[in-house]
C-alpha cells in the first residue's frame, strides 16, 4: 500500500503576491518497507515534498494518494493517515511541550481509542527503541533533557503510533558521530522489521550506506530516481549536480582516476579498504 504522488505541483505565495514554484510535475511512488533517501540542494523542494506526502500541504495540481485514496479529498479520514505516516521535522526537539516525557511521547495517541495500559505499553516500547530506560525517563520534564536526548524523545513520539511510513527531514543534521550512527542503526532496524523510511539528507555517506533507493531533486524537479547502487555509481553525473556519492565511493572513484583500477562500488570504508587491499595483494603477486 504505497504513498503515490501523481504529477504533483506546488507553489508558495511570496510577500508581493507572486507565486514561487516549489515543485513541478512530480510523480513518485513509495512502497511498503522501502528505505528511500532524498537528496538535493537547499531550496530544491525536498521539505515541501515530504510535507505533501504527510498531508500538511495541499498540492496546487496533481494528487497525493495513500492506500489508493486521495488524501486531499474532503471526506478523507486524516486521522488514519496521521497514524500510518509519521513525519519528523528538522530539529524535532523544539516541538516538545508536555510536563513529562511519558505524556509528550503519548501525545500522538491522544485521539486513538486505546486503553491507558495499551498506550503506556506503546510509550515504553518507543522510548526503549530510542535507547531510554523507560522507568528512569518517564517522569522527567522533556525540557530538562540535553539536546540529543530531546531529539530522541521527539522521535519516540513519532514512533508511538507504530507508523508504516516514517519520514525524516534532515534527521542527522547537527548530531555527533556516535549519535548519528546509533540513530541510523535504529532506523535500519525498524526498516528491517517492515517500516518504510523516507529520509531527506545532505549526508551522502548515510544515504549511500543505509538507503536502497535514492531520489534526487534540483530546482523543484525530479532529476534521478533509482537504486542507490546505480545512481551513486554515476559519479560524474552527481558532480554535475554538485552532489557526491559518499566518501568511500568518491575515494574509489578518485583512485581509479589516478590509475589504480579498483571498483568504485564500495559503499562503506570496510568495503573500500578490502578493495584496496586485494588490489595491492594482486600487485604484490604479479611482482613476485
Amino acid at each position: 500500500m504505497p504513498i503515490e504522488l501523481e504529477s504533483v505541483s506546488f507553489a508558495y505565495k511570496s510577500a508581493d503576491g507572486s507565486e514561487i514554484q516549489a515543485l513541478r510535475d512530480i510523480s513518485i511512488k513509495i512502497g511498503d518497507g522501502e528505505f528511500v533517501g532524498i537528496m538535493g540542494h537547499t531550496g530544491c523542494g525536498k521539505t515541501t515534498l515530504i510535507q505533501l506526502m504527510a498531508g500538511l500541504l495541499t498540492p496546487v495540481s496533481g494528487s497525493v494518494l495513500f492506500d489508493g485514496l486521495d488524501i486531499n479529498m474532503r471526506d478523507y479520514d486524516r486521522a488514519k493517515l496521521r497514524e500510518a505516516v509519521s513525519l519528523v521535522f528538522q530539529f524535532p526537539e523544539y516541538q516538545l511541550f508536555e510536563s513529562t516525557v511519558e505524556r509528550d511521547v503519548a501525545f500522538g495517541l491522544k485521539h486513538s481509542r486505546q486503553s491507558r495500559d495499551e498506550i503506556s505499553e506503546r510509550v515504553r516500547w518507543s522510548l526503549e527503541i530510542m535507547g531510554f530506560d523507560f522507568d528512569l525517563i518517564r517522569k522527567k520534564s522533556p525540557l530538562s533533557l540535553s539536546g540529543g536526548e530531546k531529539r530522541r524523545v521527539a522521535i519516540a513520539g513519532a514512533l508511538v503510533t507504530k507508523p508504516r511510513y516514517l519520514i525524516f527531514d534532515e534527521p542527522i543534521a547537527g548530531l555527533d558521530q556516535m549519535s548519528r550512527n546509533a540513530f541510523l542503526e535504529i532506523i535500519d532496524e525498524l526498516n528491517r522489521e517492515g517500516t518504510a523510511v523516507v529520509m531527506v539528507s545532505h549526508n551522502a555517506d548515510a544515504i549511500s550506506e543505509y538507503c536502497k533507493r535514492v531520489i534526487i531533486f534540483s530546482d523543484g524537479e525530479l532529476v534521478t530516481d533509482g537504486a542507490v547502487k546505480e545512481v551513486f555509481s554515476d559519479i560524474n553525473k552527481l558532480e554535475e549536480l554538485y552532489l557526491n556519492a559518499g566518501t568511500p565511493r568518491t575515494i574509489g572513484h578518485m583512485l581509479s582516476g589516478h590509475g589504480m583500477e579498483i571498483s568504485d562500488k564500495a559503499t562503506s570504508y570496510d568495503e573500500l579498504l578490502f578493495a584496496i587491499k586485494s588490489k595491492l595483494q594482486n600487485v604484490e603477486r604479479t611482482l613476485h
Partner: protein
Amino acid sequence: MLIGKFVPINSIIHRLDARMKIVSLIFLLVAVISTSTVYGYAAIIMVLTVIIWLSKLSLFAVLSPIRRLWLFFIVIFFMNAFFFSSDNPLFSWWIISFSGEGIRQGIKVVFNVCVVMILGNVLTLSTSPIDMTNALSSLLTPLKLLRVPVEDVAMIINIAIQFVPTILEESNMIRKAQTARGAHFESRKLREKALSFLPLLIPIFISSFRRADELSLAMEARGYRNAKRRTKKAGVPFRVLDVTAVAACFVICIIQIYI
C-alpha cells in the same frame, strides 16, 4: 489590525523624515480638533486629499480602518445625537434629548475620529517600522531628563518588530509538526480549543526565550552595552522637503486655531 502595515512604495510622503511626519501629524491633529467652521472642515478635507494623493497609497488601504469600524462610528454618532444636552431640543424623553446641536456634535465627533484614523493610518502605511522606532526614540529624547531609558525602549520595540516574521514562520512550522503528530487545532468546543493551542504556545514561548537569550549574548559579544550612550552610524539631516512639510502643517494648525 487597525493600523496599516508598511507599504514600501516611492512617494513624497514615504520619503519624508519619520520624525517630521510624527510632528506634522501632531500639528494636524490639533488643527482637526480645533476646527469648528464649515470652511475649516472643507480645508481639512482638502489637506487630507492632498496628503493621500501625494502618498500614492490606494484609497482602499487608507480608508480600510474606517470601513472596519463603521458600527463604532454609528454608535458614537447616536450617543452624541441623543445625549447632547441642549436648551432647545426637538424632542426630549427621560434622559434622551434629540436636538440639532446634538446631530452637529455627532457629525463633528465622527468626522474628527475618522480624520485622526486616516492620518494615523497614512503614517504607518508610509513609514517602515525601523524608521518609526528610530523617530520615536529621537523624539522622546527629552524624557531622558526624567531618567526614562529612551534608547533601550526604542531598541526593545525595534527588536520586537523585527522578530514578528521569524516567530510567525516558526509558529507555522510548529503547528505543522504538531499536526503531523495528530494535534487538532480546529475543535468546536471552547475549552478543547484553548487546550489545543498549548502544543503550539509552549514551544513558541520556550523558543522565544531561547532566542532572546542568544540574541542578548550575541549583542554583548559585539559590544552592545546598554549603559553607554550609543551613536548613530550617520545622522539624518533634515531636508528642505521635511521642513516645508512641518511648516505647512504648523501654519494649517495656527490658522485653524485662530479662525
